[in-house]
């Protein structure tokens, strides 16, 4: 009862503020507790130019309990799972307050894209990438934005270089391909080991990767 009324009011508030460039809609007309929200990637970040869609489930106890939010759009960000889109943000968990609205929560997600918290990660692999090599991380995040979050990006999804997708140096993949390993396997192992580039003199790591490749093939 209180939930339905408030959701309708929140819908209206989003419509009344087109300047925020935030969108909120029901997934189906029959269920007002399942919504999709979207917002634009913050300018000056690798997410600039992207449109990010968020799946929103409003629990029975709303607004006394937080809405469940996860990204539908794939996002390369330390606090967002690159696989499931799960989000690590305190206000959606224990720091929830009933005065937070769906709109303000979406704005908080936008702010999260602007300022990642790699020390409290949702996706450890991405967070490590961010901490180790920010430039490379930014390139990968921008590539994901272009591939998955741009309005017309849907059709380009197929022909993606797997190595590039995870910010791995293509030369490194080629090096192991020359040894006869399959590319998907190489990418998988390099991701697992968290290695993006390799100094050609670093034989120890080279051996470690080869061992890992042999073990998993």
């Amino acid at each position, binding site marked *: *009862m*209180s939930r339905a009324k408030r959701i309708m009011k*929140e819908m209206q508030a989003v419509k009344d503020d087109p300047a925020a460039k935030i969108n909120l809609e029901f997934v189906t007309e029959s269920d007002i507790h399942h919504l999709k929200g979207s917002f634009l990637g913050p300018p000056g970040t690798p997410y600039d130019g992207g449109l990010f869609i968020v799946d929103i489930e409003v629990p029975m106890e709303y607004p006394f309990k937080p809405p469940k939010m996860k990204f539908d759009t794939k996002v390369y960000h330390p606090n967002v799972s690159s696989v499931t889109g799960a989000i690590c943000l*305190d206000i959606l968990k224990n*720091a929830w*307050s009933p005065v937070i609205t769906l709109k303000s929560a979406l704005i908080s997600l936008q702010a999260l894209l602007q300022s990642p918290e790699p020390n409290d990660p949702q996706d450890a692999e991405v967070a490590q990438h961010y901490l180790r090599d920010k430039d490379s991380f930014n390139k990968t995040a921008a590539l994901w934005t272009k591939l998955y979050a741009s309005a017309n990006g849907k059709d380009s999804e197929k022909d993606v270089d797997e190595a590039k997708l995870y910010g791995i140096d293509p030369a490194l993949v080629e090096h192991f391909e020359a040894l006869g390993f399959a590319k998907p396997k190489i990418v998988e192992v390099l991701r697992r080991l968290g290695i993006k580039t390799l100094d050609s003199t670093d034989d120890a790591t080279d051996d470690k990767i080869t061992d890992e490749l042999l073990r998993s093939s």
Partner: protein
Amino acid sequence: MKVKLREVHSVFAWTWHIPKESQDAHAETIDDNDGDDVCGICRASYNATCPGCKFPGDGCPLVVGECNHNFHVHCIYRWLDTATSRGLCPMCRQTFQLKKGLAINDSQISKFQELRNKQWQTRQQEFGDQQDPETNPLEDQDDPMMDQGLIVR
């Protein structure tokens, strides 16, 4: 000329009187679409009811917090009764307490006192504290646990 009044229809309007300084503090934090302040929890006007009530007025009053944030009494009570609230004001995250010396709050004091006592007991059980249960729960206002700001993670 003589005028004879046969019938008189009186129309009255009422609004809650919200103390001035508390209204000011409030105006900054809430979207105010139609010049009518709304309860931050249910987003319905103060002069209307919370979602659970049918008749506005004394049956569904407001309370004013020590921090000058106002809510329908039913809304804030329901929030404070959840574990996630940790007894904090939803607006400013200070411990929510009724402002003293306001007629509007007076009838609610005992209800909120009961709630605080209940939470105090739950907290003690949770932390398995050895503290003397006779200590006055109202002195527990500066608990550092209660003092977390709105941090984006």
